[in-house]
C-alpha cells in the first residue's frame, strides 16, 4: 500500500492505528501485500506447493480448481462453496475481525468491494502483476476492482444487462419488443389490459435492480473519494427512472412477486411475468429454475431512456480477491490469475459463466453460441453489445451491503403505500447518510 496517495493515507492511517488495538481488520499484516512479488516468486511458490482455501459460491470454479490441481499437483485447493450472499459476508467479516480462519481467496460481489478495500481487508494485487492485466477486462468490472492504481481482485464475471422477454406471451397479444422505457410502459399497459393476470415484470423493490436502472439512466447517486462520500438521488437520471417506474407502480402493472421466490419461478414459467431486466448471467438460472418455459424466452437489448441511446449498466457480477490476512498469498494470486485471467476463463465460459474478459467476449465461438433455451438465439451477441455500452463512472457506496439491507424499509414504502418513489429514494438517501456519518465518513448530500 506504499503507493496510496497522501489524501487516502491520512484518512485511513487512523483506521489502522486504532484497529490494531481493537478488532477491525488486522492492518498489521498489511505490509506483506505491498511487496512487489515477481512472477518467479509465484512460480517458486507453486513449485514448493501447499494448500489454499477458496471461499466462493461460483459453480464453475469446481472444474477450475480440479484443473489447477492437475497443472500444479503440489497445490491443493480447498473450495468452500456452501455460503453465499449475506452469510458469506458475515462469515468473512467475522473471520477478518477474529484474525483467524481467513480464506486465501474470497469471492466478492462488485458492490461490496469498496467496503473491504477501505477497511484494509484486501491485498493490493498490483504488486503481483495484476495491474498489467487491465487491458484484458471490460471497463465496468475493471473499474469495480480497482481504486487508483490499486487492484483489489480480478473480475470473475460480469452482468451487462439485457431484457429477457417471453416471446410466446408477446406474440399472443401482438406486443412488439420495447426499445425504450416509454414503449415498455405502453407494453405493460397493453399486456395487463389483455390479460389481467399477466404483468410486464415483477418488482417489490430490489436495491440491486433499482441502482442498476439508475446507472443506466445516467444517475450517479454515489460519489466516493476515499472516506468522502456524496449521496444524492435528486439528479436528472433518477427523475427519468422514477417518472416511468412510478407509473408502473401506480397503475399496478408490476406483479407483487419477489425475485428468487417460488412464486417468481412459477410466474416466469406460466407467462404471468412477461419480461425480466437483469444481468447476462441469467440464462443458466433460466435453464435450472424455469425448465418448463424452454423455447419461450428470448433476449433483447435493455430498453433505452431515450430513442437511440445505447447506454447500458451492470447488474451483479463478482471478483476473486485475496484477503489481507491470507496465509498463502502467492499461491492465492496464482489461483486467482489462473481462474480469471488464464486457462480458467475458457473453462468457466464453456460452463455458462458470462466473462469479464474482452478476448472471450469478442471470440466468434462465444458470439455464435446458440442458446437452446432461447430457441437457438445467439444471445451472447446481445450481451456482448451491452457489455461494450456499460456507462462509466458508476460507483457503489463503501457500505453498500448495509444500504441495500434497508432499501425496503425506505424505498419499499413506495410499493405498498402512498409514498412516492422520489420520496422513498430521499428516505433511503437520508438513512444512508446517517449511517455513513455514524461510521465516520464525511458525507455530503
Amino acid at each position, binding site marked *: 500500500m506504499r503507493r496510496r496517495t497522501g489524501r487516502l493515507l491520512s484518512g485511513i492511517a487512523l483506521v489502522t492505528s486504532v484497529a490494531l488495538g481493537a478488532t477491525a481488520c488486522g492492518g498489521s499484516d498489511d505490509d506483506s501485500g505491498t511487496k512487489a512479488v515477481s512472477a518467479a516468486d509465484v512460480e517458486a511458490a507453486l513449485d514448493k506447493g501447499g494448500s489454499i482455501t477458496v471461499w466462493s459460491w461460483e459453480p464453475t470454479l469446481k472444474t477450475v480448481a480440479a484443473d489447477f490441481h492437475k497443472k500444479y499437483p503440489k497445490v491443493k485447493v480447498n473450495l468452500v462453496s456452501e455460503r453465499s450472499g449475506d452469510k458469506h459476508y458475515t462469515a468473512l467479516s467475522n473471520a477478518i475481525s477474529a484474525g483467524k480462519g481467513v480464506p486465501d481467496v474470497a469471492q466478492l460481489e462488485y458492490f461490496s468491494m469498496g467496503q473491504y478495500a477501505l477497511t484494509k481487508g484486501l491485498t493490493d494485487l498490483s504488486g503481483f502483476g495484476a495491474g498489467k492485466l487491465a487491458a484484458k477486462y471490460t471497463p465496468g468490472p475493471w473499474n469495480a476492482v480497482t481504486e487508483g492504481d490499486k487492484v483489489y481482485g480480478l473480475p470473475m464475471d460480469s452482468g451487462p444487462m439485457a431484457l429477457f422477454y417471453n416471446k410466446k406471451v408477446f406474440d399472443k397479444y401482438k406486443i412488439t419488443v420495447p426499445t425504450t422505457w416509454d414503449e415498455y410502459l405502453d407494453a405493460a399497459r397493453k399486456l395487463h389490459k389483455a390479460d389481467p393476470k399477466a404483468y410486464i415484470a415483477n418488482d417489490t423493490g430490489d436495491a440491486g435492480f433499482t441502482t442498476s436502472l439508475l446507472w443506466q439512466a445516467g444517475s450517479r447517486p454515489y460519489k466516493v473519494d476515499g472516506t468522502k462520500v456524496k449521496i444524492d438521488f435528486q439528479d436528472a437520471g433518477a427523475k427519468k427512472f422514477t417518472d416511468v417506474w412510478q407509473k408502473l407502480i401506480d397503475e399496478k402493472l408490476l406483479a407483487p412477486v*419477489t425475485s428468487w421466490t417460488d412464486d417468481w419461478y412459477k410466474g416466469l414459467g406460466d407467462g404471468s411475468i412477461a419480461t425480466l431486466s437483469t444481468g447476462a448471467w441469467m440464462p443458466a438460472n433460466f435453464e435450472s429454475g424455469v425448465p418448463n418455459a424452454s423455447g419461450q424466452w428470448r433476449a433483447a437489448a435493455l430498453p433505452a431512456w431515450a430513442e437511440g441511446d445505447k447506454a447500458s449498466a451492470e447488474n451483479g457480477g463478482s471478483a476473486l480477491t485475496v484477503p489481507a490476512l491470507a496465509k498463502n498469498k502467492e499461491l492465492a494470486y496464482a489461483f486467482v490469475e489462473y481462474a480469471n485471467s488464464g486457462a480458467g476463463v475458457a473453462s468457466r465460459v464453456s460452463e455458462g459463466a458470462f466473462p469479464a474478459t474482452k478476448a472471450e467476449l469478442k471470440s466468434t465461438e462465444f458470439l455464435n453460441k446458440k442458446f437452446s433455451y432461447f430457441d437457438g438465439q445467439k444471445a451472447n451477441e446481445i450481451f456482448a453489445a451491452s457489455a461494450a455500452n456499460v456507462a462509466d463512472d458508476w460507483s457503489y457506496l463503501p457500505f453498500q451491503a448495509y444500504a441495500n439491507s434497508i432499501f425496503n*424499509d425506505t424505498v419499499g414504502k413506495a410499493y405498498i403505500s402512498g409514498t412516492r418513489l422520489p420520496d422513498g429514494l430521499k428516505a433511503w438517501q437520508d438513512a444512508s447518510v446517517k449511517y455513513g456519518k455514524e461510521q*465516520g465518513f464525511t458525507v455530503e448530500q
Partner: protein
Amino acid sequence: MTTLHPPAAAEPRPAPPPARRDRRSWKGWGFIGPFVAVFALVFLAPIAYSIYLSLFRDQLIGGNTFVGLDNYQQALKDDLFWASLGRVALFLVVQVPIMLGIALLVALALDSGRLYGKSFFRITIFLPYAVPAVVATLMWGFMYGTKYGLVGDFNSAFGWSLPDPLSADLVLASIGNIVTWEFVGYNMLIFYSALRVVPHSLYEAAEIDGAGQWRVITAIKLPAIRGALMIATIFSIIGSFQLFNEPSILRPLARNAITTDYTPNFYTYSLSFSGQQHNYSATVAIIMGLITMVVAYLVQLRGMRKGA
C-alpha cells in the same frame, strides 16, 4: 509441670477458631462455587460485556473509541427504536388480553367437568405450542399467501377478494394471530393446572350455599388462580417485547411491510448483523431489557396490591 500444662495448652487454643473459621468458609465456597461460576459465566458476564460494549463505538473509519453514554443518548432520541417499541406495545395491549382471555376460557371449560373428551381437547389445544415457532410461522405464512396460499385459494374458489394478511395495515394483526395460535395452549395449561389444585371442599361449600357456576368462577376459581394469571401475564409481556421470530420469518414474504426495525429485537439484530453496529445494538438491547423489567415489575406490583 502439670500445673503449667493447662495454660500451655490453653495458649494455642485461641488460635484454632480462626483457622477453623477459615476452613469452614472455604468449604462453603466449595458448595456454592460451581453455582457462582456458572451464574457468573452465563448471566453476569454477558450482561457486563453488553454494558462494556455499549460504552464504545466501532466505526469503519476511525476504529473503536470510548464514547461514554453517547450511544444511550442516541438511542433515546432514535425514532426507529421508539417506533418499534410503540409497535410491540400496541401488540401487547391488543394481543395479550385476547390470548389470555381465550386461554382462560378454555381452561375453565376443561375444568368445568362438563366437557366430553376433555383430554383430547386439552392435548389438541396444547399441540400448537409443541410446533416450533419457526415452523408455525412458515406454515401460517403459506396460508396467508394471496397468490398461491390458502387465502389465494379461497379467493379463486369462492370469488372472494379477501384482504392481504401480509399488507402493511394487517401484518401486525396477522402476527398476533400466529402468536395467539401458538401460545393459547401453553397459557391454558398454566391456568388449568392451577385450577386443578383448588380444594374440592370449596366447591361443595359453594354448592351448599346455592352458588351457580358463574358465581363459583368469579368467587372461587379466579381468585384461586390469581398467581397463575400473574405469571402468564408477565411471561406474555416479556414475550411481546421480545417479538422476533415471527416478523423475521415473515419478512421475505412481506419485505416492504415488515421493516428491518419492526420490533426492538429485530432492530438490534439488524443493527448488529447487517450494520455491524454491535455497540449501538448492545445499547438498544440494554435499554429494551430495562424497559421490559420496569413494565413487568409494575404489572407485578399492581397484581400483588390487588391480592392484598
